[in-house]
């Protein structure tokens, strides 16, 4: 019986993953960047209530890292604004240009990844860097539709000051989970975007997405613990549409 339920579970996973693949596949049909003449913007604030961040116990290099580090899952402002939420539009095939030349770096600082959540465009060079005097490694996984993780690359950062840039890390779109095998409490998330409409909320929980072509769009709102939600929004030329969302 167990065998059957596993098989059926796998079948369900397969169906689910096919559905998700179809969803993702639609916008993947290549994004075209250019001038946006009739654009507006989407602004908003993501909030949460009753959530507190947790700490993670440090099991190695305590003398440098300290006894514990914040998990950074819930960095909440006084009025409930939630940091590190990714707000994005998936289904869009043209709009403002993508900047692939920017600086996209995840640093290892005080035994945490900095930043904890970021957006980087597909095809850009991703850099990893060790600012600590202890050994780190940056192990990237692409989160699959069934939420399993697929190995992308595992780079050693054994000494302070080591910095490595790789295009390969951003070769495929989707959500990357970054781990350090030496410090299993370390965690970062990178959204590898196929279009420039993906933002990370700031310390007040706010985001501002500029130059969005006028029309109807679906915002996808993702948080590492709270999961993914969608909100429909209509953008009018020259105006700012407001999307406030509470998890």
């Amino acid at each position, binding site marked *: 019986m167990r065998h059957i339920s596993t098989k059926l579970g796998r079948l369900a996973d397969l169906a689910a993953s096919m559905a998700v693949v179809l969803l993702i596949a639609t916008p993947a049909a290549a994004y075209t960047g250019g001038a946006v003449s009739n654009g507006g913007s989407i602004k908003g604030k993501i909030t949460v209530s009753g959530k507190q961040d947790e700490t993670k116990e440090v099991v190695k290099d305590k003398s440098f890292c300290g006894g514990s580090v914040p998990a950074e899952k819930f960095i909440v402002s006084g009025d409930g604004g939630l940091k590190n939420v990714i707000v994005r539009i998936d289904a869009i095939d043209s709009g403002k240009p993508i900047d692939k030349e920017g600086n996209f770096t995840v640093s290892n600082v005080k035994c945490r990844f900095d930043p904890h959540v970021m957006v980087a465009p597909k095809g850009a060079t991703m850099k990893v860097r060790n600012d600590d005097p202890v050994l780190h490694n940056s192990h990237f996984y692409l989160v699959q539709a069934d939420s399993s993780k697929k190995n992308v690359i595992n780079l050693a950062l054994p000494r302070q000051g080591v910095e*490595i840039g790789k295009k*390969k890390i951003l070769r495929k779109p989707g959500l990357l989970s970054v781990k350090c095998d*030496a410090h299993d409490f370390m965690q970062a998330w990178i959204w590898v975007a196929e279009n420039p409409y993906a933002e990370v909320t700031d310390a007040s929980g706010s985001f501002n997405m500029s130059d969005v072509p006028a029309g109807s769009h679906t915002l996808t709102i993702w948080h590492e613990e709270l999961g993914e939600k969608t909100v429909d929004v209509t953008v009018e030329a020259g105006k700012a549409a407001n999307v406030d969302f509470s998890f």
Partner: protein
Amino acid sequence: MMRGAKGGIGIIELLAITAGSIVVGAAAGAADLEAGRALYDDKCAQCHGLSGEGDGVAADALDPRPRDFTSGSFKIRTTPSGELPTDPDLASIIERGMPYTGMPAWDFLGDEAIANLVAYIQTFNEDFADPEMRVDPVEIPSPPAMTEESVEKGRQVFVENKCGECHGDQGRGDGESAPTLMTDAGIPIRPADMTKRWTFRGGSSRSDIYRTFTTGLDGTPMPSYADSIDEEQRWQLVDYVYSLSEDEPGYGSVVVAQPVEGPLSLDPGDGSFANAPVTRFPMLGQVTDPGRAFAPAVNAVEVRAVYNDEEVALLVSWHDIAGRREGSNRPNGRDAAPADAALSDAVAVQLPSKHGGTKPYMFYGDPANSVDLWFYEAGANEARVYLGRGEENLAPAPAGGDEIRAKGVYEDGRWQVVFVAPRGSGDAQRVPQETFVPIAFSVWSGLARESGNRRAISSWYHLYLAPPDTGEAYKAAGMMGLGALVAELLVVASVRRSQAGGQS
């Protein structure tokens, strides 16, 4: 019912495989995918699963687990971190196998059959069919000369890059991180023991080791150092790691005890042990009786022995990535230890209770032929003696019997446990002179949750007490021989003289 459900899924799997075959078939060219599939189903699927997910019927008994081909993640490759292996990479691992894992060498299948397997395995992951996902191998230059200087520089590279944090300061796989390391699938994984090069999964040549530093081992915590340690230093590191190990394990079958004067020491650092030859015995999982250990943590013990007129001392040493003294352990029992029970490390020495009889059954003896078991428990740091007449009939030895003393030390990834036991006398003589006494070993790793029947075992080997004053004995024999020769020559001479006299 089960069969029906399985059949239903089988069609989907078949479709998926067929779809993959068409694409890869084009890329693979001459390879015969149908032949590859037939061979795979016959030889590989037991471990790797019919759909390549690493979930064959034998998979749960294997550690490391069989590769999940659908993951596209392969440990041993010539390509950079996270990339698919090349066709020759896959062919090579099939040919060579992976030492100290369940993966044997399949070189006898021949090149053509292996090429078919390589093509078929690639149908399990769609990335193989995508030319953009196939990248060139890294360059592995021919190794520069290994010198004392390169080894010393390599030691510095080892220290600067903190290799010991996983692999241990002495390279025994006992680094601080070792007990916490996981595979991508969330299964605990042990860092390589660099003092046992023959266990390296990807091979033990200097080029193999260079490749591992350069490309990392995908699916494990071992990262790529291609961008953080330059080529020259990577070769130096290779040479240092190479220098930490003998070429071969050189497993033996007899531990030869050396005679010593005076009392025997429980200190593994005692000078008397340094003069005794060391014999390494392979350890395997106990898989016969219930409570089996299919993949034990310990793969060998090294044993030295010394003796005097009254006692014999054994120094048993082995590597474990962590030394556990907390808690307790037990030599037998089929049930797993309770999950919340702290398990200490342990080691046992087994000898026949009676000298000269039939060799007892190796799993703690049999009803007719019992064994004595000296069970050292790290938690108590002492030995208990058991009398065994079978795996389910092992009991503390009756009171009033011989006392076995034992002490253990764990340092830098290595346990060293000394047993001192009375040799006995008369009928109770346990270890007589100049006799091959059967001896066997068991080891339990607390970290690996080994307890009772779940343990590493050796086969029966032998303990032999080298005769004392070996030099004197040979001298005496030589003198006797010489004396006999002189006497014979004198006889011959006298006979010749008398014959000569007779003729004159």
